[in-house]
């Protein structure tokens, strides 16, 4: 059909190691954009990142302060619940362990919150111990607004809706509070290796 967009059908990468591709996923070389609303545009002068909620003292960083933190290059595979996987994506970002260093908390859960109102929830242990970053660059370039820039979460061991775009902070909580997609029919945890896409999976 003439009006089916390019890229509508995934191209299977024949050389992708099947062990890297979770069940039900196909590998894409493209980088689709999926979000429920308009792309926020927050100026760097107004941007900040906060850790709030159940902790000894809230923390915050301006953009300059955030970019002065130690950052690293991270290469990971990412998996979207809409069935595409992208292998060896390269990011630059600050480990959540760095942001939480020295914090005293009894919280067991964390909610990521973003410009535009998006939220997603996780056990705190899923963003600590080298499993999560706040990233500001993709493929060697500053993260584009459509892909969540100026900064988004990167939590690659779960479906990518658990990596909030346009992230502005983490709220530490003693209770688990389902976020945007979790209250709209998606799985509360989202492990791609167990195909935890929807509630009840």
């Amino acid at each position, binding site marked *: 059909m*003439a009006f089916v*967009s390019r890229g509508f059908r995934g191209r299977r990468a024949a050389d992708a190691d099947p062990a890297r591709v979770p069940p039900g996923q196909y590998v894409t070389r493209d980088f689709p*954009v999926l979000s429920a*609303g*308009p792309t926020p545009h927050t100026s760097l002068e107004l941007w900040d990142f906060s850790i709030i909620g159940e902790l000894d003292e809230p923390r915050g960083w301006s953009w300059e302060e955030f970019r002065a933190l130690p950052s690293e290059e991270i290469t990971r595979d990412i998996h979207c619940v809409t069935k595409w996987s992208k292998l060896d994506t390269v990011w630059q970002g600050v480990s959540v362990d760095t942001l939480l260093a020295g914090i005293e908390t009894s919280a067991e859960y964390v909610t990521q919150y973003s410009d535009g*109102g998006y939220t997603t929830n996780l056990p705190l242990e899923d963003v600590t111990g080298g499993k999560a970053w706040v990233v500001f660059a993709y493929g060697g370039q500053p993260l584009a607004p*459509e*892909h969540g820039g100026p900064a988004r979460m990167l939590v690659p061991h779960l479906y990518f809706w658990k990596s909030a775009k346009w992230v502005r902070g983490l709220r530490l909580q003693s209770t688990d509070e389902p976020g945007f997609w979790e209250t709209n029919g998606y799985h509360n945890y989202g492990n791609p290796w167990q195909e935890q896409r929807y509630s009840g999976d």
Partner: protein
Amino acid sequence: MLVAGGSGIVPLMAMIRTRAAAGNDTETRLLYSARSEDDLIYRDELEALSGNGLTVAYTLTDLQPPGWTSYARRVDPEMLAEVAPRPAEQPRFFTCGPTPFVEAVAEALVRLGHEPRAIKTERFGPTGG
């Protein structure tokens, strides 16, 4: 208000059909952008469903048939300002189409003063990289 770019009309048509099947007469406006008349789908059905609160506006961006009097360019803020309800009427928007189309429409609506949370977007197609 529904704003469709090319094959983005498909999910919006599902909404229009559901509304019609339910006998709903909520004011609904569709702005449907396509390259040419040949690329418009559901044309007859949209004509049949017009009225009862549903109005349809087309824009043909590349090729217009003789005598075409409706829009003949890509959706832009001026067109949206003419076709969309005013922000004070608190409309809800659903827009679907290729990613650059949806980005442009959503951004234009926000700039026109519409609440971002009232704009639902469905993007498809590559962005490259």
